């Protein structure tokens, strides 16, 4: 215990002395947490629409007005040349083209049916699909209005209407930051922990101070604990700052018990720090440690389920995400903060992460060799 105390004292002194690093690990995540959630927004608004109107009739004008009066769409160009509109898709200035054929109004009355043509830039398939769906909905509304106008005789057959009401549970106003803030906080927490711990031991190797440690009677467990605990506490500082930002900048009040978040985070930090320390004991140079840490971090972040849904992934990739600690913390954050889950609902996550923590740290202790 005494040895551990001195190890901890030394680590803390070193961490607190390096003001640049300290500022970076406190300020950088806070800044990112304040700014980035606003950027992670899938809400589709202000879709750039260009309308190719070959008809130029009262009906087509009415449709154009209907489209531009919503805030889903911004009219980029109103033209009668399709190639001109398509050039706007090519140059990214417009997302979707609505083409109204010649004789649209006349045809509608005479033939009872007309077709409109929608063309959308579908490189981002989801965005395209949502945009097209919105446009379709407006066209349908327009169609209903038009029909009422044309059929002054109210006895005409009514169109069967299916009214869809959507209830968005857990987040009724579809606030993106409510989902993104805890998620991004989890990512930042993971990055700080893995990066700092991955560099720490290997830095002592490069500087040569590790040899001096290795000739002392210190045990491997003491050494790894001495490295783990300071970063563990630092992680809690980051988490607390993050939760304060969430509360006071974004007004997010956890539905569930905040103690549960701390409890889970404690185990989670042990696990990711264990990974960092394992990287650090295996790497020969800081450079190697950094690249390896970066490799894992990228995969963890991209496959953590925050930016793209895990359910959209192919089956093998979904299985892979069970090895990804970030997946668990993002789910737990979502469960506790948004859904108000209790311990029983996160028990599985808790057990998996606890298992990872034990495995990774034991591995790090075993890999750390005092004697070559």
């Amino acid at each position, binding site marked *: 215990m*005494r*040895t551990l*105390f*001195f*190890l901890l*004292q*030394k680590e803390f*002194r*070193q961490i607190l*002395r*390096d003001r640049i690093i300290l500022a970076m690990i406190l300020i950088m995540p806070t800044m990112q947490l304040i700014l980035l959630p606003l950027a992670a927004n899938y809400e589709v608004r202000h879709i750039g629409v260009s309308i190719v109107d070959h008809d130029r009739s009262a009906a087509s004008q009415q449709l154009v007005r209907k489209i531009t009066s919503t805030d889903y769409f911004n009219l980029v160009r109103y033209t009668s040349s399709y190639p001109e509109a398509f050039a706007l898709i090519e140059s990214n200035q417009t997302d979707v083209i609505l083409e109204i054929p010649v004789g649209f109004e006349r045809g509608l009355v005479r033939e009872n049916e007309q077709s409109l043509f929608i063309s959308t830039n579908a490189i981002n398939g989801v965005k395209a699909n949502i945009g097209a769906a919105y446009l379709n909905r407006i066209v349908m509304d327009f169609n209903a209005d038009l029909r009422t106008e044309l059929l002054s005789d109210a006895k005409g057959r009514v169109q069967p209407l299916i009214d869809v009401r959507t209830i968005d549970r857990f987040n009724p106003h579809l606030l993106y930051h409510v989902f993104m803030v805890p998620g991004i906080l989890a990512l930042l927490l993971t990055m700080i922990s893995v990066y700092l711990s991955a560099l720490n031991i290997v830095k002592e190797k490069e*500087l*040569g*101070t590790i*040899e*001096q*440690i*290795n*000739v*002392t*009677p*210190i*045990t491997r467990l003491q050494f790894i604990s001495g490295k783990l605990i300071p970063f563990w506490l630092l992680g809690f500082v980051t988490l607390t700052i993050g939760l304060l930002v969430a509360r006071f900048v974004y007004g997010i009040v956890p539905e569930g018990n905040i103690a549960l978040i701390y409890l889970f985070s404690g185990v989670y930090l042990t696990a990711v720090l264990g990974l960092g320390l394992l990287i650090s004991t295996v790497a020969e140079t800081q450079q190697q440690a950094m690249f390896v840490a970066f490799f894992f971090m990228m995969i963890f972040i991209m496959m953590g389920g925050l930016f793209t849904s895990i359910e959209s992934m192919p089956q093998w990739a979904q299985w892979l995400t069970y090895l990804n600690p970030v997946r668990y913390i993002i789910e737990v954050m979502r469960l506790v903060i948004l859904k108000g889950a209790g311990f029983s609902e996160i028990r599985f996550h808790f057990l998996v992460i606890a298992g990872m923590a034990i495995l990774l740290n034991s591995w790090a202790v075993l890999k750390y060799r*005092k*004697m*070559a």
Partner: protein
Amino acid sequence: MTTKPIISVHGLTKTFGSFTAVDAISFDVAPGEIFGFLGANGAGKTTAMKMLCGLLSPTSGQARVAGFDLSTQTEDVKRRIGYMSQKFSLYEDLTVAENIQFYGGIYGLTLAEIKHKSIALATELGLTLEMNKLVRSLPLGWKQKIAFSVALLHDPAIVFLDEPTGGVDPVTRRQFWDLIYAAAHRGVTLFVTTHYMDEAEYCHRVSIMVDGAIKALDTPHALRKQFGVASMDEVFTLLARGAQRSAD
């Protein structure tokens, strides 16, 4: 040598793949002795020393250090030895006092002992004013003296010094050797590697390694006589000339 040797080495060997860095060396060191461990770069002295400190495991052979078996009681050995490495071993981003506190602490000294030792050390080295300065800010010679004192902090029976005076000016080197003598006088055994032949003359006994093996071992006086030359420098040159391995 009538007393029981404090370091006793028999056929100690270290191979890396097909390369034999240390080839079955055997020697004894008496308590309180200043033992010079010489050899050209790449002769295997650092490897041998690292084995004796428990930093490298021997491929074969036995060694007893401070009364313990090196391969089975490594941690007991470590409690009784001090080590000062070629690479600078203090934390540059800690102050002198903090370094002393740290190393004292992990060797199990009490806070009172650490305090006592710090004051004694500061007075001995004339560093009272520098105790709270970052090690980074001190000149190399001072750092080396502090590193040596830190290696002595827990009153080890043996201190291993790996080229302790590399890059240090002659005056500081002389002062450094005064510290070594003072330690030896207190009964500490000193195991020193060096490239400076004038320093070899200061040792009680000197061994010279060539190509992983010990080619000569005796007092500097006896070695000069044996090879019929006037200085250790010439002894070394004669032996090292036959080396097969190039430096490093």
